[in-house]
């Protein structure tokens, strides 16, 4: 079977891995690296449950081949917390009850992370646009939007205090 050695960074750590060509990034994250925070929903790029960041840009890991991330930096939900502490974004999700079953949450947080990094002060419409590719069947989205707004405001406060 056609395989390739890929070198990449996963949540800040360097990794070198032998992958067969037809495995997705999602499969390699979950099955080889045991990073099972990233979920598989639809497997067709519609639901966003498998959203991860590749070189800072959000992508659906189900429609990305593992071999394609050779030389890239990959971030998953496991890289979101800072040691034992939740990130401000994660804390805002908890505080606002922005999840019920939790299946969409890792992808939702990765989309929110990508948004806040390209736009630290998003409007409500920009937040909605940024998570339009992440389906949630529990919350009705309001608490998720509120959590992202709060996390953005908190980041702004912190950088103002600097």
């Amino acid at each position, binding site marked *: 079977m056609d395989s390739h050695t890929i070198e990449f960074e996963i949540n800040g750590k360097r990794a070198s891995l032998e992958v067969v060509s037809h495995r997705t990034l999602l499969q390699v994250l979950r099955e080889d690296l045991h990073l099972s925070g990233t979920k598989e929903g639809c497997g067709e*790029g519609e639901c966003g449950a498998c959203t991860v960041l590749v070189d800072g840009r959000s992508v659906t890991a189900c429609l990305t081949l593992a*071999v394609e991330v050779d030389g890239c930096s990959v971030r998953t939900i496991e890289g979101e917390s800072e040691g034992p502490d939740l990130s401000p974004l994660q804390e805002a999700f908890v505080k606002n009850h922005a999840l019920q079953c939790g299946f969409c949450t890792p992808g939702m947080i990765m989309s929110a992370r990508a948004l806040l990094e390209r736009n630290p002060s998003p409007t409500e419409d920009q937040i909605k646009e940024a998570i339009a590719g992440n389906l949630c069947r529990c919350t009705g989205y309001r608490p998720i939007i509120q959590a992202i707004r709060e996390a953005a405001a908190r980041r702004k406060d912190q950088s103002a205090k600097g």
Partner: protein
Amino acid sequence: MFPPFRYFKPKRIEEVTAFLAEHGESARILAGGTDLLVGMRRGEFTPDVLIDIKGIPELQNLSADNGTLPIGAAVSVNDLLDSAEVAALFPILIQTALRMASHQIRNRATVVGNLCNASPAADMGAALLALGARVTIASPRSRRVLPLGEFFTGVKKSALGRDEWVISVEADTPPPGSRMGFLKQARVRGPDLSTVNCAAVLLPDGALTLVLGAVAETPVVVTGCGSDKGNGIADRVREAIAPIDDVRGSAEYRMDLACLMTRRMVEKLTADSRRG
């Protein structure tokens, strides 16, 4: 999930062309993968070889030169949205890109891939047809340039030969004072395929190019609009399109939508020019 295949990531255009010539229809080009990998998962395509073109610097080209904008085959829809030059010269492409898929899909999906998938509902197909764009096609023999109107030949069918592939699409900057727009009607406000889409460019001399998508086997350029922007244009639209029933809407609904969207487009472009 996918049956095994071999993966190549060449660094030069000529290598891709050579791989395609060697493997023929058992090879597929991988750009963003957002149509290809979904199709492979569903068993619609079963390639033995995938040729990843994202390692070829030339295919990232997105820089207007001498009044022409080339969009290389590896340029993603979000790359387009990030370009100040595109925003200034081709607002229609920005309007179109913003209505396509979700942010994370747009980070991968390419403009040229949207054309090569050759869906009748391809939003970039409609917008680039309205701009009179052309594709540049590479093969072992030579390169050829084809007007986009001759590229789409049927549902998911293009004029590409088995050893040919698209390296870029080019659009000329419309003259100053041109008006352009893109409208899309889908089942939901969020990411969805078009039930009907409509793209148009109105030149300062009054000539109108109107394109309707998801209403026939290929996107339709409604000919003979000339400067007739009154009621006659709806009759032309009715004659030009042949919508079908599918999960996104009935033929009858699409016919009405196409006429309504045409009217709104004409109002929008002429109101813009009065204001301008």
